[in-house]
């Protein structure tokens, strides 16, 4: 597979603070890569360096196998960016905004007109063409922001937290849109705080921490990297210490805790963990209430790899 982006040993310092510390990243053409990391881990810095908005101290950045510099116009033609902050002209309406940004890439008038109409249809703003940005609701404004970034049909698109402060319905529409862009052939870099979003759309995930990549892989691969594979929780009114200790010794179990009338057992691997737990309880004639079995989330992965929660 050809590489859309290759970042090697990127170092970026802000005075004494090392924002990126020999960071490496490879993005394959056609994938949706999620860049996941807590506040201040360097996601935006990475994107700004890749886009040549920001100078860096060390390292190499290749886009489509060419070095990326501020005047790499041939590369820039193929890039679309949707930033976290809405970047549109307040005094121009929806159509004019999209037309302006599209026109920076597409010279031909007829082609541009077609692209602008397609972008408007893509984000579902057909009924708002003549609206000024301030008349749009938050969700619609985000969609306009997206349309401005992608109207010229770029091959490589960056999304820096495009769903911040967006209601769940609009958020789903945005995610659907990103998937559609990807189906049409665009390679996508997506940063977010929201694990569920990354799980939902990304083919591969890079977990960043302190300017380094802490882990890379598909979500399945990432989940395999951590010890915990299943957590089982059972509601029990009263349980002897002896039983808790026995539970801990079940195959694949590595911890068992009992608190607030709930028994929680963590497993690492193994297939019939839940069955074994319930068989033991029946054998011992211990009455129980509700039973939950949880598979690990990216948050667990994140927690285990970095020692901190993804979101505060």
């Amino acid at each position, binding site marked *: 597979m050809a590489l859309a982006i290759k970042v090697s040993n990127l170092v970026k310092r802000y005075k004494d603070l090392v924002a990126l510390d020999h960071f490496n990243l490879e993005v394959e053409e056609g994938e949706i890569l999620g860049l996941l990391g807590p506040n201040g881990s360097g996601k935006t810095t990475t994107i700004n360096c890749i886009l040549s908005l920001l100078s860096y101290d060390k390292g190499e950045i290749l886009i489509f196998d060419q070095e990326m510099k*501020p005047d790499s116009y041939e590369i820039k033609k193929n*890039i679309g960016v949707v930033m976290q902050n809405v970047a549109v002209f307040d005094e121009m309406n929806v159509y004019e905004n999209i037309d302006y940004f599209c026109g920076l890439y597409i010279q031909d008038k007829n082609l541009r007109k077609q692209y602008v109409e397609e972008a408007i249809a893509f984000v579902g703003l057909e009924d708002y063409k003549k609206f000024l940005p301030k008349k749009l609701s938050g969700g619609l404004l985000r969609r306009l922001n997206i349309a401005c970034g992608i109207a010229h049909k770029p091959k490589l698109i960056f999304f820096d937290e495009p769903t911040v402060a967006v209601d769940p319905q609009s958020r789903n529409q945005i995610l659907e849109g990103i998937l559609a862009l990807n189906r049409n052939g665009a390679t996508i870099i997506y940063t977010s705080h929201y694990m569920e979003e990354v799980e939902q759309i990304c083919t591969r995930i890079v977990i960043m921490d302190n300017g380094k990549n802490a882990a890379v892989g598909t979500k399945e691969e990432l989940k395999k990297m951590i010890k915990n594979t299943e957590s089982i929780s059972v509601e029990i009114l009263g349980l002897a210490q002896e039983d808790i200790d026995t539970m801990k010794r079940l195959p694949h179990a590595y911890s068992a805790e009992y608190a607030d009338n709930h028994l929680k057992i963590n497993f690492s691997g193994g297939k019939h963990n839940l069955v074994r737990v319930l068989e033991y309880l029946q054998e011992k004639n211990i009455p129980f209430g509700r039973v939950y079995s949880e598979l690990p989330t990216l948050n667990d992965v994140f927690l285990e790899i970095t020692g901190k929660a993804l979101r505060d």
Partner: protein
Amino acid sequence: MFFHNFKYALKSLLKTKETIFWTLIFPIALGTFMYMAFGNLMDQEEMFHSVPVAVVSGKENSELETVLLALSEGEDPMLKVSFMEEPDALKALEEEQVEGVIYTSDTSLLVNESNLNASMLETVLEQYKQIEYVCADIGTNNPGMLPEVVMQLMGDQEYFIETTTSDGCQNEYYNYFYAIFAMSCLFASFSAISRINKLQANVSALGMRRCLSPNGKIVAVTAEYLALLIVHFIIELIVLAYLMLLGVDFGGHYPAIALILLLGCSIGLSIGVIIASIYKLSEGAKMGIAVSIGMLLSVMADLCAAGIKDFIEHHVPVLNRINPAVVISDSFYALNVYDDYSRYTGNMLILSVMAVLLLGISIMILGRNKYASL
């Protein structure tokens, strides 16, 4: 690409109310206010209304007396003549009941201070003497004819107004209107700041998005600048037309006035571009600097009160040569007062050099293709 940027810059500017307010509505409001305050004072004809003058009759100059009397007759007389004995006349002059004392014996004039009325009386006597000399023949042959000839040759009041004002004694109230133009040209810097901020990646999200486009920045900067210049130039012309309709007389030379306004706008815009390129400041802070610079320079050009400009002229004259507001208002003045264009041309040279220099600096700062220091 240039045209695309230019078209949208024009569109945006015309839809931005702040532009219109600071450089169109504000000067028009200020101009109207000043016209209402000074309108009467500016009306030259009013000022020439019946200048009171005491006449001390000598023996043999009934022709001059006839002329003076003729000038004090009619619907809109130029003079208000009172015949007096010398002591009374001097007393009246002292008490400012009359503007001057004319002695018919030797055709001489006594005035207290040199103001517009005094110079008008002087002009009357000068003209009389010249015509008397020319008409000496007619006078000896037919003395009764002289006053009539003099009256015809001297024509009406406007003749005097012109002769009087072309001596460089120009109504000072006009300076306020010239300063209004200077101010509104400098206030063009506001819209330059707001437009240029939207071009800089390290200042606005919009600038960041535009920096990502596959075009050099020089193209975008020049397109913005040209659009700004056209819009503000037209706004200045509208202000000019409005003030003329209101009754302020700029005394012709309209192409030359347009050139002043064009160069003035260009300087205001370049100042704005340079302020905008200080990326560490917020838009509010940049506007604050622009307002302060614009106001300071205009006040130094007598926008609010007369005298400051003269004071600077006496102490640090070089400041007046490099203060664009002073140069702009002085160019209007030069056009109106001097018959030749040398002072005006000098001013235009100063403004052009300033405009080119400032524009060069701003394009150098902005047009470089570099990483934005985010």
